[in-house]
């Protein structure tokens, strides 16, 4: 059984940005009419994905795939293909929010005619309560942004201990909700796609027990739910298509089965026997077995959705630790890496591509191409040796930390690929496996952080901010644990630039400056970008409109039809 993945990865599997959808025929939306798509039962065959459903405890990008069937949030991803799909769209709210006070205050108006599954109208207070309860230590798991951004939220313990609530969220009336931020955040509409922004009726809140049956505000409601095993959804009669133009809600019924093996899922999707013809998956990307059959022009090629979720696999240096405090050593290793081996170790060129930039190649993140330490396809050991000699450290011996299994793409396979490449440059690598359950804990504490570790970073939303800030903002170095600035890099100029970009509410301007910032930092060789993610998902024979969206890289359950 696969591990269920850490939050970032979960989001990776639930998200996208689409570069050139290879899908043709059934996958194109040209002939698709959302008006007539209703009917049938959709099967979702998953490895995981239904460990929890409490919106307070989910860590999703864009509201997730399955959760988004149950929860409407203030904003949501716009569910479009390709570049267009990287933008948020209003959901419960009537627009993307009105910034004021230099983007430190965001005001939303709720739509009319929105109801919970029991017919109760959704009020602004329900949204506020949903956010507040995510602060309770009983309900951990969500993204940290709300705590960082909202005024006075850092020490808030949730409504159970502090029933007075958060002052930073105001609900002057049933339709209006206002957020007060401690600094300007132009990305707030992106954040408001998270499930924490889903309304929760206080009367139905059972604390931890709410997870057993979260109250739906979306097109489906829970009929039965066994975490990690099965979830059966039926239509929520109080949801009106008229007030939700993003979710098509085609199938009458959606049945999710979890706990399956990825190979079995894909084999079932290929065979498509019986109900499997109406099946999709949200977390089992194709394996080599299917890739081998995915010849151009083959029947199977028509049943595959190819997208890209913005994510980078990279080597992280701890620049406080010798020998990585020496830029020459870092540069030498940058030259030495063999990106072809790494890509193969990650599953081949269909599911990963070589990266020389930290930002993945999506325009929405502001990607600008650069390659300051050209290693070619398979490394430049000569150049690396030369640099090491210059640094006075030929025949170096280093340790490389990695996860102990390959489930998350940070395992022994890519680690061994790097070990081999560095050997060519005369560098001896000792591999240090760390249990994947504690990997982030160990690498995220500067006290225990190894000098060199294999890392992965995915976008919480398609913007440069959440991609660069945790990694390079010097004020984000957390010595007690949970640190992602593994280089422990702190440059006031960079910090100031980050603040400046955050204040921008014009995304195209922001993109430009995030890209420039990435290139600027890239010159320092604080990381060695290795590869970016590609997502290839199969779907059943009867499945229509399985279009990968631009935000999450895979098809959207809310728009699929099996009729």
């Amino acid at each position, binding site marked *: 059984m696969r591990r269920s993945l850490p939050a970032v990865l979960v989001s990776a599997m639930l998200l996208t940005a689409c570069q050139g959808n290879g899908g043709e025929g059934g996958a194109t939306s040209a002939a698709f009419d959302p008006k007539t798509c209703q009917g049938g039962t959709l099967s979702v065959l998953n490895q995981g994905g239904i460990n929890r459903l409490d919106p307070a405890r989910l860590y999703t990008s864009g509201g997730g795939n399955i959760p988004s069937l149950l929860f409407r949030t203030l904003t949501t991803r716009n569910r479009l293909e390709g570049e267009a799909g990287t933008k948020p769209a209003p959901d419960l709210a009537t627009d993307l929010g009105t910034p004021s006070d230099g983007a430190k205050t965001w005001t939303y108006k709720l739509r009319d005619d929105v109801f919970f599954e029991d017919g109760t109208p959704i009020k602004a207070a329900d949204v506020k309560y949903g956010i507040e309860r995510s602060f309770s230590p009983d309900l951990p798991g969500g993204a940290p942004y709300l705590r960082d951004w909202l005024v006075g939220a850092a020490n808030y313990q949730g409504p159970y201990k502090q029933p007075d609530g958060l002052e930073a969220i105001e609900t002057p009336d049933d339709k209006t909700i206002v957020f007060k931020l401690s600094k300007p955040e132009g990305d707030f509409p992106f954040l408001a796609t998270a499930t924490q922004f889903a309304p929760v009726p206080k009367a139905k809140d059972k604390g931890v027990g709410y997870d057993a049956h979260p109250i739906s505000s979306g097109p489906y409601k829970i009929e039965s739910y066994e975490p990690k095993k099965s979830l059966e959804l039926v239509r929520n009669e109080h949801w009106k298509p008229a007030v939700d133009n993003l979710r098509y809600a085609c199938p009458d019924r959606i049945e999710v089965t979890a706990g399956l093996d990825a190979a079995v899922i894909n084999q079932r999707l290929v065979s498509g026997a019986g109900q499997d013809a109406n099946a999709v998956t949200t977390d089992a990307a194709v*394996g080599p*077995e299917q890739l*081998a059959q995915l010849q151009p022009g083959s029947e199977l090629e028509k049943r595959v959705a190819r997208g890209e979720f913005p994510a980078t696999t990279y080597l992280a240096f701890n620049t406080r630790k010798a020998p990585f405090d020496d830029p020459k050593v870092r540069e030498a290793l940058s030259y030495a890496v063999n990106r072809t081996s790494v890509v193969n170790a990650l599953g081949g060129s269909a599911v990963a591509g070589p990266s020389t930039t930290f930002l993945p190649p999506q325009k929405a993140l502001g990607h600008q191409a650069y390659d300051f330490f050209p290693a070619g396809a398979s490394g430049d050991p000569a150049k690396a040796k030369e640099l090491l000699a210059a640094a006075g450290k030929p025949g170096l011996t280093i340790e490389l930390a990695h996860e102990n299994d390959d489930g998350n793409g940070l395992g022994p396979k890519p680690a061994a690929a790097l070990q081999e490449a560095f050997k060519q440059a005369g560098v001896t690598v000792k591999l240090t496996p760390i249990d994947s359950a504690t990997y982030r804990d160990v690498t995220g504490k500067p006290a225990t952080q190894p000098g060199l570790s294999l890392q992965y970073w995915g976008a919480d939303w398609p913007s440069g901010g959440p991609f660069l800030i945790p990694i390079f903002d010097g004020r984000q170095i957390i010595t007690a644990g949970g640190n992602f600035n593994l280089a422990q890099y702190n440059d006031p100029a960079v910090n100031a630039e980050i603040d400046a970009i955050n204040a921008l509410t014009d995304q195209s301007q922001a993109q430009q400056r995030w890209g420039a910032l990435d290139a600027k930092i890239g010159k320092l060789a604080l990381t060695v970008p290795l590869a970016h993610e590609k997502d290839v998902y199969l779907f059943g024979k009867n499945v229509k409109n399985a279009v990968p969206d631009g935000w999450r890289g895979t098809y959207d359950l809310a728009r699929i039809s099996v009729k």
Partner: protein
Amino acid sequence: MTRAAVAFRDRGLVAGAAIATLMVVVAVSAPLLTAISGQDPTTFHDGLLDSARGGVPVGAFGGVSGEHWLGVEPGTGRDLFARIVYGARVSLGVAVGATVLQVLIGLLAGLAAGLGGRWADAALGRLIDLVLAVPSLVLAISLLAIVPADWPRPVLLAVVIAVLGWGGTARITRGETLSLRTRDYVAAARVSGAGWFRVARREILPGLTAPVLTYAALILPTNMIVEAGLSFLGVGVRPPTPSWGQMLSTATTWFRADPMYVVVPGGLLFLTLLAFVLVANGLRRVLDPRQSEFLR
């Protein structure tokens, strides 16, 4: 007829022993064999893989060629022959190590229980019961999952398998000891003034050799299966250290794209296990004539 002569007439035993010996020789001489084949188990060969198709080896039978006798590993291009022979070291080493440890612990505990008097027997008997009642696979998985990942896995595996599995040997040893100690020749030795230690060494231990040896031969393949199973589940030997069970585990995702990757380690595992089962079976026939009906 001497035991050796009986042993040599037993075709199953001879065949099993031959294969088992071959495997042991392969495992021991892994560096030599890879030196002959000119490959090592860690070098990547990206050129031999079809990256667009998930990293499947290029060419027939998983990329079999003059350099790569059994082809290469999908996804990495590492030489399969080299990984197989080094994998044999781990698979056999863990199984043999676990068996030796298991027998040692079991023998000591069983002897102590059988000879140590009422209290020692009661205490050790309880302990043996506990070990036998422990859901060993469950505990092995839990144990292996929580020990730090950088501990030497093969040694750890052998220890865990042995520590959770010595109950059987101990029970057999204890039973045999209790039965042997009532034999008149033990009484005779006692009458002659021999102490329990001398009795254990000279009168009892020789009598334990046959049952313990046959039992050890029987648990060796079992231990090998356990190692393979644990590695298959991902709590056993950690890559890049090769082990057959772990190779089979990765091979499950390749079984149609690269059947060689399943067939080679799977077939060898089966063959080796069969060899050890044949040896155990034959040994029992030779050493334990009472059980001569076992598996003809």
